[in-house]
């Protein structure tokens, strides 16, 4: 007889997945990062283009981003809220992120993240994620220095 996963179990599993992803991101571990993504992931990243369609396109983008920083990166998750039910889950959090750029300077800033997951065959995968910073309408510039 199949056991029904409780809401609390589902939330805990999704939290674990997000923490695994963050650990891989801090280490620049591309395989660890990609391991949580569904093959048909749709991503809205904070930079470059409106969207990335599919894991292969997203992998190339991640590789380019990792190459921009030398050494370990900062990915600190704050105020994580998760909702889950019957194999579908979403989470939202504030992300302090950054690293050492090509000029040797350490830069960190704050972004917002939404992560959306589905459970297929007992395994949670990220089907969609959305990273962004707000922008100032007057200057037209992204605001990465806003503190929560």
């Amino acid at each position, binding site marked *: 007889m199949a056991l029904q996963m409780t809401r609390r179990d589902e939330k805990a599993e999704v939290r674990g997945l997000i923490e695994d992803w963050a650990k891989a991101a801090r280490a620049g571990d591309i395989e660890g990062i990609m391991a949580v993504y569904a093959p048909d992931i749709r991503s809205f990243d904070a930079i470059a283009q409106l969207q990335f369609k599919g894991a292969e396109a997203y992998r190339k983008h991640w590789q380019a981003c990792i190459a921009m920083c030398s050494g370990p990166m900062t990915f600190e998750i704050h105020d994580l809220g998760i909702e889950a039910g019957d194999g579908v889950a979403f989470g939202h959090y504030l992300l302090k992120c950054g690293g050492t750029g090509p000029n040797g300077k350490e830069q960190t800033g704050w972004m*917002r993240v939404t992560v959306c997951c589905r459970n297929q065959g007992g395994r949670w995968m990220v089907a969609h994620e959305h990273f962004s910073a707000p922008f100032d*309408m007057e200057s037209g*510039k992204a605001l990465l220095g806003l503190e929560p």
Partner: protein
Amino acid sequence: MTAGNGNAAAEGEIRALIEDWAKAMRAKDVDGVVSHFAADIVTFDLAPPLLSTGVDADGLQAWFSTWPGTLGYEIHDLKVTAGDDAAFCHCLTRLSGTKVDGEKHEVWFRETLCLRKIGGAWKIAHQHESVPFYMDGSYRAAVDLKP
């Protein structure tokens, strides 16, 4: 019970909700828009702050007032994933119109909407709207991108 992330009935309900919500945006109908929000909705908006919680009907009314004529709010490429009581969707939204200062605007932005079933009805519990920015040293918001 196996994971049910192919809930067709729920998907249909949510598509109808989003159509109704977008119609209310075009009509600048504040009550119609916020009727689809959970009371504790968490919003990541195009403009600051980083995060806000709760319904801001006054803020929405004030924003509607800056668009005197027709407001274009089109949902494109909507994908919905629905379980029994949690769901998420993403789309590209085209916002267009003329501001009070006479300036015409058109911007494509990314939209993620996450929903919960509350008291038997689907409500938007989280909304994330954004444009990307350019990493060419300018940090300029990319308000000029088209899909």
